[in-house]
């Protein structure tokens, strides 16, 4: 695997150049919140964060996506799709969020059905990840085969070491970008930094405080759809808001609807939706297979811990901890996992 070195002092220059040559999406701070936005230069980027409040999945699956405009011309319907994806760079995404994007790939780029809106963005975006330098009490990426310095899914991975960044070049796309800005991506000194990076990874691995053990959980869920556990407190305290699903980097449910702009014109939109809402599974005839919070809460965790694995052989959760931080009533997937493990053991 190839590697490069970038001086920390040269990062603003790199970001400014990238912002000129691409749509550069990076973390920004808006008051107390960190989210990903398109920026026009290094001055807007905010990198002193552990993790953002909303994940960067919006780069590929925007919360609001217009799929086309339509015009009814009397005897036919004219469809106008928006312009294709622009060349973009996503800078500063953490390893957990990048891993999450790879879990979205099989959903939107399946064998039988491809989503051109997602694929277009995915093909045209270079993902430059940024390793973590700190672990929050709510982090648990290690439980899902991830790590604070794991480059899986990134085209380039920056790891801050002293006054330099150690840059792993993970794909051809990444290499092409590093070569294009070779005056900033140096080839010298990478070997020593590689060792420093490993030490950092080891140090961070020891900082996790949440103990999450998935042993037996999948098997338990595979064999038991009905569990008395789901009648417990979680479904009683859940408010049914969409916070967990909207901040989650692996959630991908959406609603498609037409929005008229006149008698004969309009647009079709694809917007994020949440399985925690009661009307999410409401059928046209009035039937709702998930009529109460119990079914919806159970569904959420079954999806994260089982269904996604079943369908795509990939984890459904990356351990970013946002749901744990943001849930108004402290529903905690790590507690649920550990509870289920106990249920499995006592069975």
């Amino acid at each position, binding site marked *: 695997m190839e590697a490069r070195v970038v001086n920390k002092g040269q990062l603003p220059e790199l970001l400014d150049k990238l912002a000129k040559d691409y749509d550069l999406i990076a973390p920004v701070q808006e008051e107390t919140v960190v989210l990903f936005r398109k920026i026009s230069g290094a001055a807007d980027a905010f990198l002193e964060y552990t993790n953002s409040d909303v994940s960067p999945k919006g780069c590929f699956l925007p919360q609001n996506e*217009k799929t086309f*405009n339509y015009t009814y011309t009397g005897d036919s319907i004219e469809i106008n799709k928006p312009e294709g994806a622009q060349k973009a760079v996503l800078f500063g995404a953490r390893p957990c969020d990048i891993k999450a994007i790879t879990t979205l790939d099989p959903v939107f780029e399946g064998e039988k059905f491809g989503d051109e809106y997602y694929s277009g963005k995915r093909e045209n975006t270079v993902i430059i990840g940024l390793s973590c330098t700190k672990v929050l009490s709510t982090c648990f990426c290690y439980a899902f085969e991830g790590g604070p310095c794991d480059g899986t899914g990134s085209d380039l991975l920056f790891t801050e070491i002293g006054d330099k960044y150690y840059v792993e070049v993970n794909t051809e796309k990444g290499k092409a970008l590093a070569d294009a800005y070779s005056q900033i991506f140096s080839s010298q000194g990478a070997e020593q930094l590689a060792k420093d990076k490993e030490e950092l990874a080891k140090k961070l691995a020891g900082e996790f405080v949440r103990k999450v053990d998935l042993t037996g959980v999948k098997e338990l869920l595979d064999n038991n759809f009905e569990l008395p556990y789901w009648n417990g407190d979680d479904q009683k305290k859940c408010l049914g808001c969409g916070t967990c699903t909207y901040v989650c980097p692996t959630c991908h449910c959406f609603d498609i609807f037409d929005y008229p*702009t006149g008698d004969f014109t309009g*647009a079709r939109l694809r917007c994020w939706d949440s399985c925690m809402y009661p009307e999410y599974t409401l059928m046209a005839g009035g039937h709702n297979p998930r009529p109460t919070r119990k079914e919806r809460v159970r569904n959420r965790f079954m999806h994260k811990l089982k269904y996604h694995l079943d369908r795509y052989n990939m984890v459904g959760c990356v351990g970013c901890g946002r749901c744990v931080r943001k849930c108004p009533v402290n529903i905690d997937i790590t507690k649920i996992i550990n509870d289920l493990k106990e249920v499995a053991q006592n069975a």
Partner: protein
Amino acid sequence: MLKRLLEYVGFEPGRFQARWISGSEGAKFTTTIKDMTEKIKSLGPNKKMRDDIV
């Protein structure tokens, strides 16, 4: 109350008005609408909460 709330969120004063006019107060209705129309015209196009779909 709604008028105050709208102004608090940034609508120009005068853009939203509420009047109680009974069916038999035709003249009051006319003057109110005329005044309101002039007021709105002087305020120009509304910039808040526009439908921005293209």
